[in-house]
């Protein structure tokens, strides 16, 4: 069994039990052990990097130190956490001067960043540790009637030079993982464009316009649902549909479903165990094509 320190972050435990449940159950079923370490904090994603980048790198490095001490690699679910931790890990491994500077800050906490662990996105755990073939064989409930619009969001892929998940202009990892579940991955216009999630709360009208475009394009492509990776994208597109209806007078009724939820369903996990009622846009139409 392969073990990882699970980096849970803030938004998932605060708002999205559906994400956490599906990820924990699916990874356990695939033989990945997740360890919950004490004393972790916020990863310091782009909104905190916007306030102070040096502080953000130091806090991210502190969290990586906890995994180093436990002798475990880290796995992230949220793309904000992935961006922050994988970026910091790569930057400090590549730049001795920066590493020394951050370690001077970390000395206040009794930690030292060594740079001997990896930060992985859970999609990488699926492709590298589980493997596509074993994943395919583990599917007991193929999603063969389902047309899924893959949505990467921004921070699983970019900045690609540091994150190295996939080609930032032509990624295929998520589409491949969707197809391993028996579903059809549908192409749509401006697939890689931002959902506007990080503008929510400061420029809502721009955020909703970007989310609306995503919903428009996936609807036109005939998708049954959008598969997301990030809790911010999930909120922008799920909760966002209620706001778009109210403020822009447009109705989509497009289910937004985390890839981990689709994975859990395909692995035969009981939908009643997945807190699917957390979704603002009901996923009944998706379930009726699966069960």
């Amino acid at each position, binding site marked *: 069994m392969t073990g990882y320190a699970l980096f849970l972050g803030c938004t998932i435990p605060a708002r999205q039990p559906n994400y956490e*449940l599906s990820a924990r159950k699916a990874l356990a079923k695939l033989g990945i052990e997740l360890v*919950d370490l004490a004393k972790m*904090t916020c990863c310091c994603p782009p909104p905190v990097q916007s*306030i*102070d980048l040096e502080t953000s790198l*130091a806090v991210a490095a502190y969290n990586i130190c906890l995994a180093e001490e436990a002798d475990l690699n880290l796995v992230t679910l949220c793309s904000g956490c992935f961006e922050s931790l994988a970026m910091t890990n790569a930057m400090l491994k590549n730049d001795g001067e920066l590493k020394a500077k951050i370690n001077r800050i970390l000395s206040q906490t009794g930690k030292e960043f060594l740079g001997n662990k990896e930060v992985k996105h859970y999609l990488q755990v699926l492709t590298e540790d589980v493997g596509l073939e074993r994943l395919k064989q583990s599917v007991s409930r193929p999603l063969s009637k389902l047309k899924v619009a893959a949505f990467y969001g921004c921070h699983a892929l970019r900045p690609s030079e540091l994150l190295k998940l996939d080609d930032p202009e032509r990624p295929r990892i998520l589409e491949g993982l969707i197809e391993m579940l028996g579903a059809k991955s549908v192409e749509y216009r401006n697939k*890689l464009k931002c959902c506007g999630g990080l503008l929510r709360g400061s420029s809502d009208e*721009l955020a909703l316009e970007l989310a609306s475009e995503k919903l428009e394009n996936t609807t036109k492509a005939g998708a049954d649902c959008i598969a997301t990776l990030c809790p911010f994208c999930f909120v922008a597109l799920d909760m966002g549909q209620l706001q778009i209806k109210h403020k822009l007078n447009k109705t989509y009724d497009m289910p937004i479903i985390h890839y981990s939820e689709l994975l859990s369903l395909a692995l035969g996990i009981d939908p009643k165990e997945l807190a699917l009622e957390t979704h603002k846009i009901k996923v009944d139409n998706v379930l009726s094509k699966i069960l």
Partner: protein
Amino acid sequence: MTHGKEKTLGSLAFPEAVKRRLGGETITLCYQCGTCASSCPVAKITDRFNPREVIRLSLLGERNEVVSGDAIWLCCSCYNCQERCPQKVEIADVIYALRNIAFREGYIPNIYSEFAGALSSDGRIVKVSRFVENKRPTLGLPALQPTGVDALRKILSATGFDKLQQRREGA
């Protein structure tokens, strides 16, 4: 002419200040081709933000307009511009550097200020309510581990983040 002299000094001082900040190092490589603007999802839907223009104004030393204006806060941090820049200007990071300078001078949208406050009080930018925490066992989720908020506060103190945040809250 004092006006001209100020302009020259300003245009030298501000880009140099940005360059010295973490994230801002590549700003002077920009040759204004506009690849960033044509890759920007926000610039497509509003004329209030254009990454090429933010960099241009910064390079011209228009410090106040850049730092106190709304434009830098309209970047959605998607990094499309940074991926495509032929000069390898790390544009999204340059915008962080500009925002970091703005924060130091007290210009920061409320929601970011709320994140900063939650970070130092709870160790998380989004608070996990007692209600949600108590509900975890009924959903089949393990208890949450305690956060390392004490260590985090030491980091905020070592970088001066806490003082800037307190000044902002006191203002």
